[in-house]
């Protein structure tokens, strides 16, 4: 394993220190670990917080700043952060508007964030958890832990962050987050595995002439392995998986402020159709040259044109990675006016900024 690191135990800390040194608009806390905005936010603004295992950089810490996250809690590499991180972090940035946790749907993340929300709600700090479960590689939720949260997370953090900045309250932010989640679908593939620093070797073996279809962002093996093929064919496979996905219904837990406990809520993602307008993310998994992502975008654009689907906005780059994995994922979020308005709103974070 060759990496630009010092001791394996210090990877997360030193990366946080580097970020804080490079970006004056974020601050870090090391025990417990979280990253938050330096400038004060408007009184009453909902605190938008995310977090998850490290190794997906720039997500989430790179998205802390004006118009996006108030704070992020990094866990160990590929391991959910712990409730005390989220709890301390929320106490630090909560500003009278309550807390919205944006949580990727992995068993670990869900449970840790739920524990934190329980603690905060128990103390009278209104806290809601919204899940992201957009990975169509996971087919059903009856026989699995449900779909994983992947690329839609980036888009949700941007949009809900902008809405919070614009004065949406906790219920409105949560509803918007739900809407974005129900309109997002992603599918990924890998050319190579990644190497977790502590493990020091690839998570899975893959031959020179094979690729893995349907990987997530944790170096976990995907759904199937096929012979390596052209970028156009690979793009078609990913895009087809997204468009072939039918209406998808599942139960997701949310905090019920009346019963003061968790309630299951049905969430339906309608299949994509002709005439839809999309925000598209062509995402590199860490070691994919930008030029190759543009080659994928080119084909995605071509396919969408034949489907009469408009790519209204896009991001092409490495935004939600799996350490040094070679590969890519495609995310499409069906947009509407509200979504586009908040997508276009000013954002100023280390990894995303525009005005």
């Amino acid at each position: 394993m060759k990496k630009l690191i010092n001791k394996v135990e210090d990877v997360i800390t030193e990366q946080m220190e580097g970020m804080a040194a490079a970006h004056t608009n974020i601050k870090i806390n090391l025990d417990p670990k979280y990253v938050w905005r330096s400038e004060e936010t408007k009184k009453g603004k909902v605190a938008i917080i995310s977090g998850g295992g490290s190794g997906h950089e720039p997500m989430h810490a790179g998205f802390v700043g004006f118009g996006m996250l108030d704070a992020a809690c990094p866990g160990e590499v590929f391991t959910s952060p712990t409730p005390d991180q989220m709890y301390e972090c929320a106490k630090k940035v909560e500003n009278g508007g309550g807390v919205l946790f944006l949580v990727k749907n992995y068993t670990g993340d869900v449970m840790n964030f739920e524990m934190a929300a329980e603690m905060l709600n128990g103390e009278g700090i209104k806290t809601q958890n919204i899940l992201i479960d957009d990975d169509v590689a996971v087919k059903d939720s009856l026989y699995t832990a449900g779909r994983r949260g992947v690329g839609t997370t980036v888009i949700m953090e941007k949009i809900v962050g902008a809405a919070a900045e614009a004065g949406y309250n906790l219920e409105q932010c949560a509803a918007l987050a739900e809407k974005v989640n129900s309109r997002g679908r992603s599918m990924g593939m890998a050319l190579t595995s990644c190497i977790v620093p502590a493990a020091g070797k690839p998570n899975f073996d893959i031959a020179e002439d094979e690729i893995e279809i349907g990987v997530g962002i944790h170096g976990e093996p995907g759904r199937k392995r096929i012979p390596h093929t052209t970028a156009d064919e690979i793009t078609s496979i990913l895009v087809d998986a997204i468009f072939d996905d039918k209406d998808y219904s599942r139960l997701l837990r949310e905090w019920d402020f009346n019963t003061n406990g968790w309630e299951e809520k049905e969430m339906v993602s309608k299949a994509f159709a002709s005439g839809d307008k999309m925000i598209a993310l062509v995402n590199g998994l860490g070691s994919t040259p930008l030029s190759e992502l543009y080659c994928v975008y080119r084909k995605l654009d071509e396919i969408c044109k034949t489907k009469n689907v408009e790519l209204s906005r896009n991001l092409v780059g490495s935004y939600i990675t799996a350490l040094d994995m070679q590969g890519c994922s495609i995310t499409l979020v069906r947009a509407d006016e509200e979504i586009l308005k908040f997508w276009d709103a000013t954002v100023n974070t280390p990894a995303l900024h525009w005005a």
Partner: protein
Amino acid sequence: METIKLSQLITWLEKTAKYMQENKEYLTELDSAIGDADHGFNMERGFNKVIGKIEELKQSEDAAALLKGTGMTLISSIGGASGPLYGTFFLQASMVLKGNKELTLEDLKASFENGLKGVKSRGRASLGEKTMIDVLEPVVTSLVTSTEKGLTINEALENTVNVAETGMKSTINMLATKGRASYLGERSVGHQDPGATSSYLILKALKESIN
């Protein structure tokens, strides 16, 4: 009446930490087949944290405080799926104990029973889903039986290790429907569950600490 002393519970934690260190690579290897290759690191990190607090834990007033301190430490240091689950197990296990300076088999049973309940409600999994529950639930069942039969603590723990091992191995042929392994569908079959394996090690450590 035969009991488990606080000092023996401390030994249990120390032995568990040692097993997690020794089996770090093994547990991670199991997790790399059907998960994300971190279970060994997670468990080692968590129990090392417990060991780091062992002097403090030794000062615990009673078994409830000891188990609660352990649970809180695991929760705030493991993360992932196993952190809240093991943390909850110890935390909930502590809840039914009140001022006990030592545990009878009855206490242990009640405590584990409540721990298991916590794990199941936190993780919403049940038997046969290829998780740590495939070890923890048979263990609790066995403790219940042993209590009813009036076995000694040693006999009872001997039994728990046996059912824990059987439970652990039973996960090999299961199709995972909870946790990360569930993403693999059919491909999860044929691999032993890492969390079930760490649960087995915890039970093994318990038996060896009491003997």
